[in-house]
């Protein structure tokens, strides 16, 4: 793999950009791998990357039914924050946020991490108390957040309307080192680094079955034939129930549609991410100037990557009351992804009833921010059989009543 650098740009400029190589290979699958990861989204690719980087396991295939990063990883609104309430959540999301800080250098790929700050507005007394509680919890967890008053909110976001028609802005939870990153670049950067380590990323190949012997995984069936493996990681987000069924077990997950939309590009007007969970909408501005907008999920099970129109209307209504200046913006595009939601809104990074078969799923509406930490923990779990970061996120925690309850704390959990 050729190193990307300012020098490389200059060199290629001088020879009409004829020397750039493909960022990753597109090989045919081998008969056997030590580890197969199903799903080339951010979490699957990060798992493969840290298996190689941290544990020297390079005989790895990542199998993707579509194109890499074409699932939720390429469909999300890229909010990165770690101001969660529960200790185990704060630990893994903060690990991820920390890794994002120098991921561009680590991968030699510009993922455009922009720690511009994330504001979560408090618009009811209940939300004030909730966010103050989170701020205290974050202090104890070593996550840098602060509860700020409305005047400070107005200073940070001049375009905000503090006296909205339904809910005034009473304060906000402020995480200065939260922000955004370029979602495709995260997938592409990990893919390029995995390919450089000799791993095979096999796109346009669907896993159609999981083969087991005596309760152990031995391989998968794919649209390109059977492939053997020692260990299997299922990292397929909204399709995790389909994969687990192939392996003969069930997951406490439901798949629903979540949508996002972007506006026409406008001049810079807001240099932080703002989430308004009571009125149910959130917004940030991309480097191109588009306002990136999202809201809530549909209420019913869905695998179509299309959501309901009235949710867009609700989201836009929420943002118009919070930011009156967006009322005349034109929207350019709208799309949906299928998110995998658990009962306590926390993920599963877990062993499964099938030996050597591991699952990483349940990130629901908020897993982009977690990609590096999740891959780190999943690789550790798969390589060594134990990961302290993943310890609490077992698929059996519901049986024991050990919820990692982020549903009350987050409301909208992006």
């Amino acid at each position: 793999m050729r190193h990307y650098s300012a020098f490389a740009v200059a060199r290629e400029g001088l020879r009409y950009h004829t020397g750039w190589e493909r960022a990753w290979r597109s090989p045919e699958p081998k008969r056997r791998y030590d580890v197969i990861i199903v799903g080339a989204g951010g979490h699957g690719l990060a798992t493969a990357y840290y298996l190689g980087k941290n544990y020297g396991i390079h005989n790895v295939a990542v199998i993707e039914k579509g194109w890499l990063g074409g699932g939720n990883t390429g469909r999300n609104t890229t909010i990165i924050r770690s101001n969660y309430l529960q200790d185990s959540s704060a630990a893994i999301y903060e690990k991820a946020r920390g890794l994002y800080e120098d991921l561009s250098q680590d991968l030699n790929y510009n993922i455009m991490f922009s720690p511009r700050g994330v504001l979560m507005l408090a618009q009811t007394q209940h939300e004030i108390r909730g966010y103050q509680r989170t701020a205290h919890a974050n202090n104890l967890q070593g996550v840098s957040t602060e509860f700020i008053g409305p005047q400070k909110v107005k200073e940070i976001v001049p375009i905000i309307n503090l006296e909205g028609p339904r809910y005034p802005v009473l304060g906000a939870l402020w995480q200065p080192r939260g922000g955004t990153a370029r979602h495709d670049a995260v997938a592409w950067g990990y893919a390029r680094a995995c390919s450089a380590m000799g791993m095979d990323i096999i796109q346009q190949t669907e896993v159609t079955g999981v083969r087991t012997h005596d309760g152990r995984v031995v391989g998968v069936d794919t649209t390109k034939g059977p492939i053997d493996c020692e260990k299997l990681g299922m990292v397929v987000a909204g399709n995790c129930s389909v994969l687990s069924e192939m392996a003969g077990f069930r997951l406490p997950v439901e798949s629903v549609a979540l949508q996002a939309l972007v506006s026409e590009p406008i001049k810079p007007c807001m240099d932080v991410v703002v989430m308004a969970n009571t009125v149910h909408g959130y917004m940030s501005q991309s480097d191109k100037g588009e306002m990136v907008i999202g809201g809530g999920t549909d209420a019913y099970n869905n695998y179509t990557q299309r959501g309901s129109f009235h949710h867009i209307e609700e989201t836009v209504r929420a943002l118009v009351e919070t930011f009156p200046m967006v009322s005349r913006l034109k929207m350019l595009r709208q799309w949906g992804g299928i998110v995998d939601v658990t009962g306590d809104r926390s993920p599963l990074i877990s062993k499964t009833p099938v030996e050597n078969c591991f699952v990483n799923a349940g990130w629901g509406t908020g897993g982009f921010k977690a990609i590096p930490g999740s891959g780190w923990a999943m690789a550790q779990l798969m390589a060594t059989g134990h990961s302290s970061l993943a310890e609490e996120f077992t698929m059996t925690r519901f049986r024991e009543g050990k919820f990692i309850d982020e549903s009350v704390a987050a409301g909208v959990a992006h």
Partner: protein
Amino acid sequence: MLILKCPYCGVDAEETELAAGGEAHLKRFGPGSSDDEFHDYLFMRENPKGVHFERWRHANGCGKWFHAARCTQTLEVFGTYSAQVTEPPQEIRDAITAKRPGWTWREFE
């Protein structure tokens, strides 16, 4: 937009008139049941890619609960039926079979 016919008032209700109520025909497990049964009843919802049975409420209409059979892969609606039954009626099963031969869902087929 999803449109379901309310079997009670006969209205073709648009999604904004309806409230989704999750998996249909749940068996409720309480005291005396095994840990597995109680766990599955509380946390393990069906999440099929394909035929699915659900509860819905005509919330901004007649207010009544009813059942729907839907495909989660295409959003096609196979039919709606009364809430007063514990399993899908034969005509709904036939309507699904006509379009998805060999379908199964939980203990039903």
